[in-house]
């Protein structure tokens, strides 16, 4: 259905409330943060209003560059792992009976209800030497003695994938349910094995959905700061951890703000690049 664009000023009425909320809770805090990022830190107190680039300059070092690089790498790894796991899973889920689907979706939603802290400590127990899953492997005769699996990069990645997977499935689910099942059947009658049909028809037909999901999980993972601390070594700490550290423990609000602004800019640039690449791929 096509609707007329708003004619009078009053037609924009319904927009007032969301716009107000957006301004109060998003635009104002973000603008404040940008402003603070140019302020001067006052070691004795908090900060003094100013316009200096010191905070950004300090950021341009090898150390922070490495942390930023690792943060992006971790977020991309989580996004790719989630999508690689979730696409086949959701595809199969969408083809099961309604009752099975509901059961799985409820289970996934219950994972969403867990807080990051609980997830972090649950996994740190599971990865521990004394009470972890390696004891199970020892009992099964797969390993000779129990070992600690954390802190490690693998532990951070596993827990973050665990946390983001329900989101991924829920974002993919509507698109996969809507996907015409006869597309796969048509591919099979044309000579493609079920696996081949999945990769030559289902995945390409869902290209845009998959791309959007990748971006969503990437951004979601970028904000994670508890799991890397609970399950990782200091070299696995993300920029979000450092921002928290600067803001809360070092009381260096201007530097924390500068890092946050920089992270937003880099993220936006990456998302824009992905969308641009997606458009180009489509046109080709």
């Amino acid at each position, binding site marked *: 259905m096509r609707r007329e664009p708003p004619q009078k000023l009053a037609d924009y009425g319904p927009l007032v409330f969301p716009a107000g909320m957006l301004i109060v809770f998003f635009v104002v805090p973000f603008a404040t943060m940008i402003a603070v990022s140019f302020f001067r830190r006052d070691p004795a107190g908090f900060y003094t209003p100013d316009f200096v680039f010191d905070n950004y300059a300090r950021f341009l070092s090898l150390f922070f560059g490495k942390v930023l690089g690792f943060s992006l790498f971790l977020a991309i790894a989580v996004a790719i792992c989630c999508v690689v796991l979730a696409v086949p899973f959701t595809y199969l889920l969408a083809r099961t009976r309604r009752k099975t689907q509901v059961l799985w979706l409820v289970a996934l939603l219950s994972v969403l209800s867990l807080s990051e802290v609980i997830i972090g400590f649950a996994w740190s127990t599971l990865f521990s030497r004394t009470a972890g899953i390696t004891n199970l492997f020892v009992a099964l005769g797969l390993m000779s003695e129990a070992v600690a699996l954390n802190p490690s990069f693998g532990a951070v990645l596993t827990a973050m994938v665990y946390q983001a997977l329900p989101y991924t499935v829920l974002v993919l689910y509507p698109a996969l349910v809507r996907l*015409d099942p006869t597309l796969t059947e048509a*591919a099979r*009658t*044309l*000579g*493609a094995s079920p696996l081949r049909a999945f990769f*030559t*028809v289902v995945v390409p*037909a869902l290209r845009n959905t998959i791309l959007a999901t990748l971006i969503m999980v990437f951004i979601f993972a970028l904000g994670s700061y508890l799991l890397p601390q609970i399950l990782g070594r200091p070299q696995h700490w993300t920029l979000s951890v450092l921002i928290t550290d600067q803001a809360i423990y070092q009381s260096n609000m201007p530097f924390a703000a500068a890092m946050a602004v920089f992270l937003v800019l880099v993220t936006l640039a990456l998302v824009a690049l992905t969308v641009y690449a997606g458009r180009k791929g489509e046109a080709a």
Partner: protein
Amino acid sequence: MPGLTLENVTKQFGSFTAVDKVDLSVPHGTFVCLLGPSGCGKTTLMRMIAGLDLPTSGGIRLDGADITQVPTHKRDLGMVFQSLALFPHLTVGENIAYSLRIRGIGKEEQRKRVDELLSMIHLQGFGDRPVGKLSGGQRQRVAIARALAISPRLFLLDEPLSALDAKLREAMQVELRQLQQQLGITTIVVTHDQREAMTMADTVVVMNGGRIRQAAPPVDIYRRPADAFVADFIGSTNLVDFTVDSAGRVVVLGTTVEGLAAPTGVASGVLSVRPEDLELTAPGNGALAGVVTFLRDLGGTVETFVEVGGRQLVAVSMPHARPDVTVGQPVGVRLRPEACVVLKS
């Protein structure tokens, strides 16, 4: 025997029997229409031929080889789906070339075959267009070309023309039949449209309740229906109960039909008479006595509704033989004995 053979094929979904002990033989190069009301099992039967569903019991043979358990992608089929199922992420040319690409055929050969098929379906130069930009009829043709790209051993079409408007559908029926004859390919079409089946098929297979009620050439299906269901489903007909008197003559609605003998051993049953085989005459003189209740003048044909002994009969005549009757007028109805079909009741 070459061609497709179904032996005792049965498909059950839980306690529901969708296809019930179907035997059918489709000789190589023939065009068969599976025809029936919705839920009669025709689509399930086609899906089993395609391998998309496996029969609960029974066997399917293609050119002598048992293919009952062969997976779909190894059957070398071409199938057109009701939804067409064109791949939205591929262009027209890429859609048509899909089966060739899957089989690892070289790019140059693919292009040649696609051009050949595009000209066959009169869509030269459409190869690079996205399928979303095509009209309904064009998409239909692309789906047909895609199914025929590898010269399949069986060409299956599931309600292929149902999405098209009436005029285009009629034109495509003729085109599809001509294409099939030109390629000499064994073709099976599922349809609920009897006109479509009559237009295209060498053999019409009428199904109901999961069983084949009759499999015969279109004219035989129309002229010699096997039972009341087939007679009623194909075209329109007048079904009237009859009894047999002591002299072995057929009695309909209290009047003896002259010149029509019942088969020996039959005491009663149903008579099928096509509307064009009912003759309106003056009352009496051995004709059934009735009253005209309605006239439907369609221009091309005239339908006269006559009530005889509480039953409504319909007679169809051409405009030049328009019966000179009005509503409420008593008339005589004569059944042409050679056109009456005695059916099992």
